[in-house]
Structures are given as structure tokens and as C-alpha cells.
């Protein structure tokens, strides 16, 4: 048993223990302890007409959101990543903003714009509203992934096609087919994220499965009902992941970025340039500028002072917890990513599946599981403290950092590590001197992504935060019920600032140290 095996196995064990075990505990408890009564919940649920309605609603929200984000995200990703569209960087940054805040905040912002009365309001509270908000939140996921994927297409393949056809033909025939498995993955991600989303449909009073299922839990105190309710969510997640494994795993063509002479070509838009810019600009206006301008418009120095007074402590806590969570996730993700990338242990496939499964699982499930597992006198040092929050973050977001690590490692030729091994360096030294320095940019990127997700987390935080230790998203959620709109706007602004400032610093650092 060498250091490598011990470390990697520990990481896998940590994932299983912190992440998977709570979920298993819920299911086990409902079946074992509630006995036959527990099973009857499952039966009752399946027979209930309402469950199918709710699942249908959930599928509708997720399905429409996925289709629309793909429809807009693919062209946008191409335009922002590969064309000579003016102000590309600015537009990309703007489109990414909705990803930085909890989705329900966008729902609130849109509510302020559309108002309570009239046709717009009637339309907003329901499926269209949910889709609108979730579309603007998850659009950046597709856009950014498409941009990254396009960078990995061998430019020669595109150039070979350029000799016989213009860019539309090249994109259609070569670029898009090559990145398609990755695009489908992005679509799957959006589907799962919007399926498990509860904040927005709850606010918009649209009955989807995660919302109603857990209303049952809190309204009628049925642990068994809650467990039964998690089952469809677990199954959908499971099914989607199985699809990924079966259809997409073997279809990823050589997608590693290849350092070639000249690099990927910029697509000249020619005469259409400004016209396309107008279109992209309008899209940006609708999905980002409008709601956030409304936000800024409602804010005054007085309201910011009030917001700081009411939520300043939770803001500081949020920053601290998110940073700690991101750091732990970066470490765990690195080890898991290494395990997966190098297939270092026999069960590497399971590790990847478990991580992604947990990521897709609705936060309420993880939250309840965490409580069920850790709320004992003996484990008070976890449960009554911020550590439980960190455990929640580790459980839910490990897949992010591990997958980012995998792609960072994929860019390092294995020969580099092997050369060090042949020269006699131990595994730990190889990790420290070769792998980590080469992959650090990917690791840093993973840290920033993890930071955003930990900061904006609401579902898990709300379930397990120790009394008196609430985080900013939770505080906003509770104050939203009766705070003035100016106060809410100021709080949202604080939330954005909390997300953006560390990112801008980190992003600047990455850019500044970019290899020439």
C-alpha cells in the first residue's frame, strides 16, 4: 500500500462517506425503520395521480429550459468563442452574471419588472416564468462549455474543410459534429440542474416535483413520504447519467487542445457583423441587463446601509464558508480527478458516477440525508457547527472540481509524469513537482467555480445551517418575505459583489500569469 493508493482511496472513501452515505441513510431508514408502512408510501405515491402531474411539470420545465438554452447557447458559444464579434469579452462576462446568484433572486428581479398585474404577471407565474428565469440562469453553462469545446477541435480539421466550403459549411459539417458529445453533456447538465431546482418554481407557484414532494414532508411530517419522494428524483438522475454513460462515453473524439501553428481561426462575420452584434446584444439585454439594471435602479446608499446592517454578518460568514468549501473541494476534486483520469484504482468509474450523481441530486435530498446521518450526540462537533455545511458542499459539488481536474490533467502529456517516474521520483514528489504545477491553472479554475457554487447554495444551507450561522442566500430568502423591495435589491447587490470580487481578483491573476 503506497502513498498513492492510500491518498486516492481516502479521497474516494471521503466522497462515499460524506456524500453517498447520507442519501443511502434516508432510503434505508424509510424502508427498514418505518417497516411496511414505509413501503406503503412508495406505493401510495405511485398510485397518486398528482405525482405524475408534478413529474410532468418538472419534465416540462427542464425540457423546455434545456431546448432553449441549447438553441441560444450553441450559436452564442460559436459567436463569442470563435468569431470577430465586437465586444466579445464584455458580452461573455455579462452572460455569465446570472450564474453567480441563486436563481430565485432572478425570479424576484423579473417580478419587479413585470409587476403584479396584467397579462405579463399572469403569464409569469407559471411555466413560462420558470422557463424564462432558468433559461437566463443556465444559458452561460452552455455558452461557456461550447466556447471551451470549440477550442479543443483540431484546427487542421476545420482548415481542411475550409478549402472546399465557407464557414457555415465548416461549422455544420466538421466543428459542430465534433463537439456534439460535449454539447449533449452540457444539455444533460442543464436538464438535471433545472429538474432539481426548487427555489424558482416555489416562488412562481408552479408545482414541480421537488417543491411539492418536500412540502409533503414539512406539512405532514412524513419521513417516509419524503424518502418516497426522493425516489423519482433519484431515478431520473440515475437514468440521465446512465444515458450519458451509454451514449456519450465512447463518442468523444480527440478533443485535447492541440498547440498548432496559428491556432483556431477566427470566423470573419463580414457584413453581418453589426447586425449579429445587435441580435446578441438584444439577447443579453433581455436575459441579463434588464433584470440587473432594475436591481441597480432600486438600490440607494440608504438601502445598502440597511442591507449591511441586517445581513453583514451573514455576508462575512458566506465568504468564509464559500472559500473554505472551495478549498476543500479543490483538494478532494484534485485527488478524485487524478483517480478518474489515470484510472488509478479499479473502481474509478464508480467514483465518477457517484460524484456526478450527487451533483445532480436535488439539494433537499442531500440536506435531509445529512441531518439524518450526522445529528447524533456523538457527532455534535459536525452537526452543530459550520462543518456540516462544508460536508454538504463536498457532497453536492465534488463532481465539479473532479471533472475540471480531469480535463486539466488531460492536457498534460502522460510522458511528462512517466519521465519523472523513470528518473526515480516518488509519486508524492511527482504530484508536487510535475503534475500540480502544470495543472495549477485548472485547479485554480476549479476553485473559482466551486466558490461560486458554494456561495450561492441555498438548498443545503437552509436545511443544515447551525442556528445563528445563516449564510447570505438564506438570509435573503427569509427577508424576502417581508422586506421592502429596496432592501431586497440591496441584498442582491451584496450577493453579486460577494460573488464577483474574488472572481475578478482570481481571474485577473490567471490572465496576468498566462503563458505567452
Amino acid at each position: 500500500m503506497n502513498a498513492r493508493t492510500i491518498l486516492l482511496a481516502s479521497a474516494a472513501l471521503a466522497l462515499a462517506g460524506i456524500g453517498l452515505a447520507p442519501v443511502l441513510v434516508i432510503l434505508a431508514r424509510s424502508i427498514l425503520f418505518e417497516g411496511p408502512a414505509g413501503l406503503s408510501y412508495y406505493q401510495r405515491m405511485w398510485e397518486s395521480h398528482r405525482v405524475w402531474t408534478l413529474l410532468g411539470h418538472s419534465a416540462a420545465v427542464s425540457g423546455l429550459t434545456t431546448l432553449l438554452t441549447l438553441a441560444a447557447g450553441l450559436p452564442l458559444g460559436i459567436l463569442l468563442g470563435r468569431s470577430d464579434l465586437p465586444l466579445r469579452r464584455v458580452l461573455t462576462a455579462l452572460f455569465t452574471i446570472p450564474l453567480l446568484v441563486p436563481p430565485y433572486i432572478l425570479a424576484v428581479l423579473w417580478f419587479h419588472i413585470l409587476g403584479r398585474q396584467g397579462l405579463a404577471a399572469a403569464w409569469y407565474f407559471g411555466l413560462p416564468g420558470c422557463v424564462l428565469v432558468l433559461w437566463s440562469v443556465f444559458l452561460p453553462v452552455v455558452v461557456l462549455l461550447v466556447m471551451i469545446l470549440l477550442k479543443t477541435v483540431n484546427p487542421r480539421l476545420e482548415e481542411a474543410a475550409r478549402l472546399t466550403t465557407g464557414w457555415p459549411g465548416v461549422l455544420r459539417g466538421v466543428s459542430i459534429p465534433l463537439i456534439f458529445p460535449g454539447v449533449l453533456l452540457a444539455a444533460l447538465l442543464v436538464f438535471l440542474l433545472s429538474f432539481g431546482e426548487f427555489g424558482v418554481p416555489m416562488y412562481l407557484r408552479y408545482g414541480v416535483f421537488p417543491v411539492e414532494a418536500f412540502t409533503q414532508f414539512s406539512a405532514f411530517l412524513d419521513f417516509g413520504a419524503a424518502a418516497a419522494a426522493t425516489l423519482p428524483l433519484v431515478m431520473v438522475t440515475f437514468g440521465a447519467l446512465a444515458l450519458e454513460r451509454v451514449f456519450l462515453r465512447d463518442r468523444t473524439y480527440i478533443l485535447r487542445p492541440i498547440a498548432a501553428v496559428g491556432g483556431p481561426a477566427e470566423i470573419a462575420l463580414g457584413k453581418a457583423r453589426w447586425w449579429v452584434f445587435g441580435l446578441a446584444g438584444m439577447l443579453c439585454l433581455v436575459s441579463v441587463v434588464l433584470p440587473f439594471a432594475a436591481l441597480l435602479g432600486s438600490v440607494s446608499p440608504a438601502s445598502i446601509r440597511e442591507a449591511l446592517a441586517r445581513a453583514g454578518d451573514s455576508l462575512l460568514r458566506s465568504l468564509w464558508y464559500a472559500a473554505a468549501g472551495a478549498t476543500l473541494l479543490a483538494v478532494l476534486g484534485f485527488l478524485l480527478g487524478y483517480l478518474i483520469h489515470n484510472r488509478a484504482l479499479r473502481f474509478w468509474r464508480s467514483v465518477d458516477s457517484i460524484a456526478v450523481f450527487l451533483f445532480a441530486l436535488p439539494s433537499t435530498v442531500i440536506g435531509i440525508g445529512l441531518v439524518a446521518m450526522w445529528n447524533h450526540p456523538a457527532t455534535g462537533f459536525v452537526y452543530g457547527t459550520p462543518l456540516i455545511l462544508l460536508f454538504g458542499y463536498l457532497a453536492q459539488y465534488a463532481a465539479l472540481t473532479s471533472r475540471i481536474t480531469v480535463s486539466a490533467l488531460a492536457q498534460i502529456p502522460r510522458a511528462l509524469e512517466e519521465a519523472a517516474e523513470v528518473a526515480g521520483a516518488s509519486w508524492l514528489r511527482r504530484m508536487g513537482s510535475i503534475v500540480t504545477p502544470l495543472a495549477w491553472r485548472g485547479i485554480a479554475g476549479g476553485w473559482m467555480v466551486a466558490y461560486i457554487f458554494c456561495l450561492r447554495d441555498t438548498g443545503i444551507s437552509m436545511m443544515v445551517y447551525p442556528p445563528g450561522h445563516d449564510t447570505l442566500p438564506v438570509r435573503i430568502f427569509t427577508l424576502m418575505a417581508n422586506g421592502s423591495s429596496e432592501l431586497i435589491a440591496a441584498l442582491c447587490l451584496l450577493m453579486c459583489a460577494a460573488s464577483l470580487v474574488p472572481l475578478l481578483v482570481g481571474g485577473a491573476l490567471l490572465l496576468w500569469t498566462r503563458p505567452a
Partner: protein
Amino acid sequence: MIRFDSVSKEYAGRAAVSGFSMSIAPGERVVLVGPSGCGKTTVLRLLAGLTVPTAGRIFIGDRKVSGPGTLIVPPEERNLGFVFQDLALWPHMSVRGNLEFGLKARGTCREERERRIREMLSLVELEHRAGARPGELSGGEQQRVALARALIQRPATLLMDEPLSNLDPELSLRLRADILRLQRDLGFTLLYVTHNREEALALDGKCVSLVWPLFQKKGAIPG
């Protein structure tokens, strides 16, 4: 007639090609020789329109196709074939698909497409591999597909970037003979890049040596 007129190309302050001038008559066979990094590939790319010169002009026939910083005629209209160094066969298409792509893009009718594909496949002796994916082919077979793909459009000029560098000597010889035969039969202009002097000699064409960007010499290679 292809003409390079004092063409220079800079990448991030570094000159890949500097003040390069050359003329190529129709049907001529020109070999660009030189060590790696001296700008041979860049010359090909400039001619193909995959990149634009920083200075100078490029003509194909009477037409100016590239000027300083501008692409006047896009690649798809230059009637060129290009065999890349790493072949760049589209992995998601079969051999037939790779051949068909350009024809489809140009709107060639189905009958004509079929005819040309059959013709090309027999020319490079790959009729039995039409349905295979590039990943399933041997090195030599992939080479021939790349060649066929470049030639199926009946280009006036064929550009080849170190096409034989990854093959064993025996295969190399055979393919070289094939290339020469095809040029004789189809009559295209050949612009061939290699760093291998023996190969350059064997191709028996006009040799242009590019040693460093500032140095270019027409005629026979020294030594």
C-alpha cells in the same frame, strides 16, 4: 501561374517568412526544402488562404488572392488541394464521407459525386475501405485517403505538407511514386514541402530552399 511577391508573415513579432518571392508555372513541380521552423508550412498556408501575409501579395493566375493583412479570395475559391502534415482526416466521417464532403459542399449532383468517388478510390486503391473510419485505417491508407480527398475536387494546384514524414521507407517510396504518377496523369501544379533532402532530390522538381526566413535560394539545393 502562382506568384509570391515579397511576402512576409509575422507571428507575435517573430518573422516566419520574410520577403519571400517565387513564381510557379502551371503544372510545375516545386519542392520547398528546409529545416523545421523555417517557414515552409507558412508558405503553404499563405497560398491556401488559411492565413494572411503581413506584407506582400500573392497571385493565382492573374488574380490577386491575398494582400497585406487582407484575404481577397477565400480558401474555398482558390481551387487548391491540401494534404496536411497530420492529414486532418475527419474522424467522425467514413472514407467515403471524407471524400464526399467537399463535393456536397460545392453542390455537385449525386451521380457526379458517385462517379468521382469511385474514380478516386480506384486511383488510390482503396475501394474496399470506403466504409471505414480514419481511425480504422493504417498509416499508408490514411495517407492515400488524404491524397484522394485533396484531389477529388480536381484542383489546379496540390499543396503537400511533409506528407510522407510519418511512414516507413518502403511505404514512403510507393506513395512517392503514386504522387508523381498522379501528377503526370492529372496535370496539377504540385507544391511539396519536406525537410528531407533525399526526398527532395527524388521528387525531381524545382527545389526552393528555405533555410532561415531571410535566406531563400532558387535552383538546385547545395551539397
